[in-house]
């Protein structure tokens, strides 16, 4: 198995698709769509091989390690542990769904669109599997620009503003992170070790306190902007509102997870002392995000914006779980990332279904849809409840574990986080009521005769998400088992280092 480059195949199959697309004339939309879909499905099929990961075996499996820029010790090192694995699978599933869903809505500059989405896939997958910090940074940036183009070219009316905001925000964070990565690698080398960017070599090294604090802040900015944490979230609603549906699915489903992944993979194990010192602040910000996101979501007139702000709130749970440093919290954080990816991806897809027909997303313009398109209403209901965290659906497990972890950390924190479960029920159910019950608005009445229910293609796109949201909800065991080892390692790193005497900074 080891000689077979599974991970490279997963990451670069989409790139192969891009190269093939370059050879196809831009007018042959049918061929273009098939190539893109097959590339994404190919990547997905190969990613299923990762299920052969041996729990209890070595930490990173399916490793590949090739020299790249030897003068600086940069290597092409990739591998997966449980954390990477679930996120890689989430990425390949959601990308395939997004590409399939784009079949009809995207009619303009089709070839460029699929090239961008496949490149985006390469970047995202690369981030999750890179074990060389320089390689990680390269993939991180590679994932940025396709999204910039997707929002900017195929987005809504204010797309240029939204996309420039998105890219500048992200770029500031990631460039500071680059400085931090270099500083960490140089500090490591200064102790007489060979110069390397290998993640496995760099973690577990006792960095000086100031360096840890500064590097942590730099990493924090990069990841917090991506998550996005309050108060760095302002790019998100703009980007979501303007992005095409498939862009929103990937943005909410996967791109936000890059930030959460970054915290869990790099910030905590690499700079544990700083992480412990900064934890109270981050938990505070997470609580603000959870509540603020929920309250703001409540008053959104636009369906997509509502889901976007609910993401701010849900990702707050991820951050909260990550920084309470106990098993339940961390497991909950990871579970919540996966669940949020599936649920929010599906919700954006469903918003897209109605938007394609009416070109409008205002909640006030809807109403009574349950009577006209009941299957759509049922599916929307399913994911609405999953988002609220109804037991039996995926959202519940993550939120429950996070709150449990938070309770072990501090009862007050847990209680505050719990309040928001009520808020989320309020904004989601209220939205659901206004959209699907009551009487149709005048605006919607115009579309009444032509409204159609979910069609075959949309069912196919939704299918995997429905399976996942129910499956993850009723049978969380396998996933929790897979992420148990990475969680233990993070706790070990934090506990081991938190005692070295890195005093609070304040």
């Amino acid at each position, binding site marked *: 198995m080891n000689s077979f480059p599974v991970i490279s195949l997963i990451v670069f199959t989409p790139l192969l698709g891009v190269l093939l697309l370059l050879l196809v004339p831009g007018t042959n939309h049918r061929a273009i769509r098939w190539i893109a879909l097959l590339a994404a499905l190919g990547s997905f099929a190969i990613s299923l091989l990762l299920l052969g990961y041996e729990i209890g075996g070595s930490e990173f499996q399916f490793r590949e390690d090739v020299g790249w820029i030897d003068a600086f010790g940069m290597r092409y090192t990739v591998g997966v542990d449980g954390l990477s694995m679930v996120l890689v699978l989430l990425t390949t599933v959601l990308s395939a769904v997004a590409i399939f869903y784009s079949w009809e809505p995207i009619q303009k500059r089709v070839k460029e669109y699929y090239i961008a989405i496949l490149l985006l896939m390469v970047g995202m997958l690369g981030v999750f599997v890179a074990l060389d910090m320089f390689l990680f940074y390269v993939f991180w940036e590679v994932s940025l620009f396709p999204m910039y183009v997707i929002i900017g070219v195929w987005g809504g009316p204010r797309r240029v503003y939204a996309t420039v905001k998105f890219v500048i925000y992200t*770029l500031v964070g990631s460039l500071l992170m680059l400085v931090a990565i270099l500083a960490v690698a140089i500090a490591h080398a200064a102790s007489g070790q060979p110069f390397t960017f290998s993640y496995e070599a760099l973690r577990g090294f006792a960095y000086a306190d100031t360096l840890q604090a500064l590097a942590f802040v730099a990493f924090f900015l990069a990841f917090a902007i991506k998550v996005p944490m309050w108060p760095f979230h302002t790019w998100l609603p703009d980007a979501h509102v303007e992005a095409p549906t498939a862009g929103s699915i990937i943005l909410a489903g996967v791109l936000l997870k890059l930030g959460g992944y970054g915290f869990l993979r790099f910030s905590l194990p690499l700079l544990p002392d700083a992480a412990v010192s900064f934890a109270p602040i981050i938990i505070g910000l997470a609580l603000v995000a959870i509540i603020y996101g929920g309250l703001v979501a409540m008053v959104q007139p636009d369906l997509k914006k509502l889901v976007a702000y609910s993401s701010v709130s849900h990702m707050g749970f991820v951050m909260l779980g990550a920084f309470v440093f106990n098993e339940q919290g961390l497991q909950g954080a990871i579970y919540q990332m996966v669940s949020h990816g599936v649920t929010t991806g599906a919700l954006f897809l469903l918003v897209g279904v109605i938007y394609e027909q009416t070109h409008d997303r205002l909640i006030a313009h809807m109403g009574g849809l349950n009577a006209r398109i009941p299957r759509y209403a049922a599916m929307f209901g399913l994911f609405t409840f999953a988002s609220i965290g109804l037991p039996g659906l995926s959202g519940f497990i993550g939120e429950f574990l996070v709150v449990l972890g938070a309770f072990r950390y501090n009862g007050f924190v847990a209680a505050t986080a719990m309040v928001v479960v009520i808020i989320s029920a309020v904004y989601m159910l209220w939205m659901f009521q206004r959209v699907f019950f009551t009487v149709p608005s005048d605006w919607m009445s115009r579309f009444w005769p032509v409204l159609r229910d979910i069609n075959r293609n949309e069912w196919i796109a939704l299918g995997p998400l429905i399976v996942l949201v129910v499956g993850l909800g009723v049978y969380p065991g396998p996933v929790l088992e897979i992420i148990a080892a990475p969680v233990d390692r993070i706790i070990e790193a934090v506990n081991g280092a938190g005692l070295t005497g890195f005093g609070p900074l304040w």
Partner: protein
Amino acid sequence: MDMLDDLVTLLPELILAALVLTIITTDLFLSRANKWLLTPLTVAGLVLTGAACVVVWDINETVYAGFYVVDDLSVFFKAATIVIGIISVLFAPSYLVVRRIPLGEFHMILVSALLGMFVLASSSDMITLFLGLELMTMPSYLLTGLHKTDRYSNEGALKYFLLGSFASAIVLFGISWLYGITGTTNIAEIAAALEGRMSGALLIAIGFLLVGGTFKIAAVPFHYWTPDAYQGAPTPITGFLSVGPKLGAFALLIRVFAEALAPLRADWLGIFLVLTVLTMTIGNVVALVQVNVKRMLAYSSIAHTGYIMAGLAAYANASDTDTAAQGIEAVLFYVLGYAVMNIAAFAVVGMLQRDTRRFGGLNSFAGLAARSPGRAAAMGILMLSLTGIPPTVGFFAKLYVLLAAIDAGLAWLAVILVLNAALAAFYYLRVIVYMYMRDPEPDPAPIDTSPFGSVALALSVAGVLILGLFPGAILGLLEVSAASLF
């Protein structure tokens, strides 16, 4: 026999000089319709010179009584010069022809400037250094004013000439002070004589050399001539001016500050750091508000100067030889990478000026992706590279500088640099926004599609990507080159 042996080490310079003469004479015998043959001729000559550079690699000799040094550092600069020359020569002709600018003069003057850069890179004596500097800048003035019937071209050339001569005089004055203090013009001897010395007179010498040198690289606050000179010059030539003389000027800075004044580096570092920060920040801030792409690129080239200076600052602040060498290597890599991407970027602007009334405004880029997908994609990659996004050479160049700066204990400078890079993203990406996210103007600018230009563009973009993905290939050469200084 010594003289003859020495001649071999001058092989690249000799070929280049012969090329100048060949161009002049060939030009006489070519009918107007056949003038385009000068371009392949020049390229062939430059390739031959490049081959000669391979021959003199690893010789590391000082020849002609200490006036001329052929070390690996100089050979690296020469090779980079050749790259710049070849790309510039390929890009320019179609732009010049529609404006009735004589091709023969262009080729001959350009190659003369290249020869000046060769001499500058190889100077081991202040006299040779000044000679090279003048041989490089005189043709640059001429190139700026090559479009004789254009007012802006005249204005730019005049400004460039007046301020440039002034700067040359200042450099010369600095050299004379150094001579007065040390009694020699030989760079190695100056360095030896300055070991452990500091005086008011020396400070004056450093001051003059710093002002003159930073003038030539167009660092803030001595940058005022650049936007006008760059905007006035014919666009593809602007591409050359923004990197060629800059490369030469950095060769000068390295020879003067990292060789002659190396013992005093702790003394010039402070003011140099101030200039570095000012240069990158002001260059970016002013570029931010430009709506003319040509002028935007001109200001952004000031910002890039600042990034390169950071490499030199890292050299000066380094505590050990390895780190110091890394600073110099960063300068070399950045200069080379920047040269390739910037010439090509200016060339694309030039391609949109096929209609001579166009000035390279942002609007002419509107909807370029639909009208010319290949050129738009190329420009997009160049813009990303100038921003410093992987996997392009621009990214790796910045990374090298960052690495050198952090290693040398200048982490704060690295932070300022990346914040500037994020700022620069705003205006570079604006070009992409126009190309990909706007519809074309009702009366779009015609696009130049000359074969030479297309080939050069393809080569540049390939270079930008390949050097970005696999820089390992030339890192070894850089190390050897920088080692000549230590």
